[in-house]
């Protein structure tokens, strides 16, 4: 895995997490003064949330989507304004309960888990089904 260094995390007790972001290339031999380094700080909210009014957070319970990198206890970021399509990971209300699954629109409309232990949910007229929103990101916390 390749990891790029972005900057030092300043974790003050702030609601918006700010990280200094180095925008200019650093040329060897003649460094610019330190004050020139700090440009716009990184804001995780801006990075993860495009449409504030339509974005909701939910907590995952269970391992149905473990194959997609969504762990038990993960936080999902859902954007209700984006229309999901074939293969989107979505949150939907199925018979009165929220589930997170991958949406398949072909050959038949169904919701599939990313875990062999879970059966696909085929959407038919017997099932009360409504898409809640598209999952745009997952936050898995390790500590």
């Amino acid at each position, binding site marked *: 895995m390749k990891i790029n260094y972005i900057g030092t995390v300043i974790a003050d007790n702030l609601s918006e997490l700010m990280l200094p972001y180095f925008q200019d290339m650093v040329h060897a031999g003649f460094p610019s003064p330190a004050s020139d380094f700090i440009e716009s700080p990184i804001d995780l909210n801006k990075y993860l949330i495009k449409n504030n*009014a*339509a974005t*909701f*957070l*939910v907590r*995952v319970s269970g391992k149905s989507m473990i194959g997609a990198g969504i762990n038990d206890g993960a936080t999902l970021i859902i954007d*209700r304004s984006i229309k999901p399509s074939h293969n989107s990971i979505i949150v939907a209300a199925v018979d009165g309960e*929220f*589930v997170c699954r991958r949406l398949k629109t072909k050959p038949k409309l169904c919701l599939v888990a990313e875990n062999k232990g879970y059966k696909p949910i085929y959407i038919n007229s017997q099932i*009360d089904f409504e898409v809640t929103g598209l999952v745009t990101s997952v936050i898995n916390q390790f500590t």
Partner: protein
Amino acid sequence: MSIALVDCVSFYASCERVFRPDLKERPVVVLSNNDGCVIARSIEAKKMGIKMGVPWFKVKDRYIRKGGIVFSSNFAFYGDMSRRVMNILDSISPKTEVYSIDEAFLDFSGTEKNVGCFNFGLQLKNTVGRWTGIPVRVGIGPTKTLAKIASYQIKKRNIKSRVLALDNQKDINQALEATPVGEIWGVGRRLNRKLSMAGINNALQLSYAPPQDIRKRFSIVLERTVRELNGERCLEIEDVSPTKKQIVVSRSFAKKITNLEVLNTVINDYVVRAAEKLRSEKQKSSTISVFIRTSPFDASQSYRAIKSYSFTYPTDDTRDFLYAVRKTLAKIYKPNYRYSKAGIMLSSFSDIGYVQNSLFRESHTYKMNSKLMKVIDELNINQKQIYIASQNIGKFKPIQRNMISPKYTTSWIDLPVVR
């Protein structure tokens, strides 16, 4: 020239449903602070005959037996959902007036030529519905008053699309004729009676009255209404919200209070909240009123009292208000009563910048006070950490909210769960 009134359908009850898909099509009611009265009903609950404002204990047994769902009010959650709805409206039309927690006026003059009024309304409804899960009605007309009438007609005619655009005279007249004067925006019960004595029973009849006559016989306000009914704009969209004129904090108690010290402690809590709000609005107040009362459902005793305290100088310092409340409460408090509700009101506002100096008090004392209050407000922004000594710190629970839903959108531990 078109104005839309966007109005959330049974707002609090609709909020409760957003993260509870199992409650779709089930009766839902929301109770006032302290679980006293019904303050919101889903359509299903309305159909069961649950009236707005009815005391909960009167309908509880029958409602629950029939499978109704009940919630205590969760204002942190409703406030966040309201913010979302209003943000969306604001992003669609730059001229938006938030009229209440669940209503807003939009001026979309100019846009209607491209898409048509009805389609614009449909787009609004679909966007808010899809993005937030909150169902809205959209009433459209050339003026605010007519937009309100369109919204009323959606309810009355039970229009499935929940959008009605009054964009031609024929539709306007039809809607006016079907609207009793008492349902017109700004016509209260007394005015309603006076108008029907004059033979004016519906909005169409009122719209035919000569405005000058209405002004002479009634008021300039009603004259404006008549002009608005005729499509003449008199009320503009107020996209800059006017500064508040007063701040009220009042609650009923879960358990009756029979002791002055406890009552004072509970009221001190209200004072701290109101003063925080006052400072966040950058205002100062020079009058605080205190009121206390016994329960209106208690047949054996009845006492209510209200008294105001005026400061020589406008203030926003919590300690000034606490001092005033202690003095005022001692004057109106009578022993041997079981108090069920109390409240305070701050009024006579003036901007922070403007403080009249006096001969007897040095101006710098204000600065020092405001610094202390600012520090306390900052420390308390996320979580209450600093209390004034006379405040209630959890020993006595004044509010009862036994059936409150989680704070789905404002608290990490309350996030909705998906499987």
